[in-house]
């Protein structure tokens, strides 16, 4: 027979994760000390919580993005069907494209809420008194980011600077200036958390703007700033203040010159502006895809490819082209385009994503299995390994 005291103890043991009052906590401790059954239950529940919490369920950012994308697509397709509209492709595409547009944002927001895989190492001081940072990639590889040195990491990486923790998205480039407390971001995006206590300035500088911080958590891409906590001032290279953002506000940078699909001057003569235009055109291509403006998106993609950009930008443009085919409902071309990315950029995240995307799209089961096996062989530690194995098992006869 269960004693009333043990009934109460059981409820309190169960409620420990939610928090107990001091009086209840003391009462429970006292009871457990004299009751073997409740002591055993308390230990079991603590063990269960510890085991469950030791494993954090985690999807890759791409998987989360895909889930949002597919949900929007499903909804758009359903709405379209309900309205008996003739163009299924457009609705489907709008859903997919909508998610494509926020992909970059998802990268940071989704992972910003929960720490990702990368571990943070303490920032050592360099021999000259300047501040250096230790960078640790998820692979465990450690590199020192010395003041003035530019780094480019292939995977998501956390960097601890003297009073800020910065998470760099894959394929981002960064350069730390310890004297001015400025982190240059010529390419890619980051999430920064700045400790306000040292009362020292901190800024992230992109080619188009500079985000100054007084103590906050904020995200910077090449075209936007999102403030999660605190305040950020966005300043143009000319020094003109563009915006002061409070928590929950976002600034989008629009490059007017880049909005034209055809550059006004020869691409090769663009010089320093070329990089800006490529980044802006990629943004434009994504936005247009999101808005269902497929022609505009295609023009922007073509402009990027015509500019002969660097490898990552080329990979992104070709990926967007594959997504464009997907949005249009041209599955065959989409698979071919994804496979092209997978073959040309096999060492980039884009290549990995593309191979898995092709496998997902492939309706021929034998071919899909072949692609999944290829994926597992090529990326044994890849971000879609679990899903690839699951799909292979599911499709096995």
């Amino acid at each position: 027979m269960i004693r009333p005291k043990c009934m109460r103890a059981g409820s309190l043991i169960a409620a420990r994760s939610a928090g107990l009052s001091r009086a209840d906590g003391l009462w429970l401790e006292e009871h457990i000390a004299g009751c073997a059954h409740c002591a055993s239950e308390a230990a079991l529940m603590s063990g269960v919580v510890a085991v469950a919490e030791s494993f954090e369920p985690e999807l890759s950012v791409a998987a989360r993005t895909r889930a949002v994308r597919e949900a929007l697509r499903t909804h758009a397709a359903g709405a379209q069907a309900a309205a008996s509209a003739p163009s299924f492709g457009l609705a489907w595409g709008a859903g997919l494209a909508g998610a494509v547009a926020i992909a970059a944002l998802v990268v940071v927001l989704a992972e910003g809420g929960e720490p990702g895989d990368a571990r943070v190492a303490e920032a050592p001081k360099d021999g000259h008194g300047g501040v250096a940072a230790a960078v640790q990639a998820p692979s465990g590889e450690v590199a020192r980011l010395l003041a003035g040195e530019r780094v480019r990491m292939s995977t998501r990486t956390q960097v601890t600077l003297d009073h800020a923790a910065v998470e760099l998205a894959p394929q981002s480039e960064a350069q730390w200036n310890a004297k001015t407390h400025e982190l240059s971001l010529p390419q890619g995006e980051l999430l920064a958390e700045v400790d306000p206590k040292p009362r020292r300035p901190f800024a992230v500088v992109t080619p188009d703007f500079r985000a100054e911080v007084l103590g906050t958590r904020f995200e910077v891409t090449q075209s936007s700033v999102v403030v999660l906590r605190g305040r950020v001032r966005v300043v143009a290279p000319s020094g003109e203040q563009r915006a002061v953002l409070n928590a929950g506000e976002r600034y989008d940078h629009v490059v007017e010159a880049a909005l034209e699909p055809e550059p006004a001057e020869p691409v090769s003569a663009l010089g320093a502006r070329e990089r800006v235009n490529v980044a802006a055109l990629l943004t434009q291509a994504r936005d247009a895809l999101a808005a269902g403006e497929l022609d505009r998106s295609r023009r922007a993609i073509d402009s990027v490819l015509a500019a002969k950009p660097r490898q990552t930008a080329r990979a992104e443009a070709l990926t967007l082209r594959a997504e464009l085919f997907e949005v249009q409902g041209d599955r065959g071309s989409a698979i071919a385009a994804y496979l092209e990315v997978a073959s040309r950029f096999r060492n980039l995240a884009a290549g990995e994503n593309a191979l898995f995307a092709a496998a997902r799209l492939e309706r021929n089961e034998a071919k899909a299995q072949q692609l999944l096996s290829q994926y597992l062989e090529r990326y044994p530690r890849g971000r879609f390994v679990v899903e690839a194995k699951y799909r292979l098992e599911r499709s096995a006869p």
Partner: protein
Amino acid sequence: MQNVVAIDPQRREEPPDLVERCRRGDRAALEAVLTAHAPYLERLLGRVVGPRAEVEDLLQATLAAAISAFPRFRGEAQVRTWLARIAVRTAHDHLRRAEFRKRGELPSLEAVPDGEGDGRRAEDRLDAQQRAARLYEHLQAIGPKKRIAFLLHIVEGHPIEEVAALMGASKPATKSRIFWARRELMKRAARDPWLKTLAEGNEP
């Protein structure tokens, strides 16, 4: 400041205008809200179903259900709570399905991914996943409603009232579910050496 729009995944309450736009099916607003809450929903789903490959599918199903239901969202609860309720319902339906019961085996230990890095960290992660898989094998023997209530209250630390709200159940029913889940686990601990080690306060 014309380029500034409100979006904050950290804040639990969305601005009313953003919610209103979601109700009207505004794609940008939906994207912002769903993107902001996806990590939380993913964690919740993962916690309820365990280390499984279906979490992505469940997340997608949850988000799709949320998009469809947004026009009916009355704003009586926070968006996050409302989404969590949909996630819990989705997970519950999933757990109940006969098909799931049939292929309810958790991933074999060989199939567990070995993490993204080498060395100690990958081993730790593998070890954590193996232990979690083992725990969920035991939890699988408990009915879905009891199991979900148990996990939300005892592991996730939601108060009884919140668990009841998330599951659309009364407080007494929720308490009862948690009680019976605890009891079932204690019974299994008496028979299973691994759980017994936990009940003795040792790390298995």
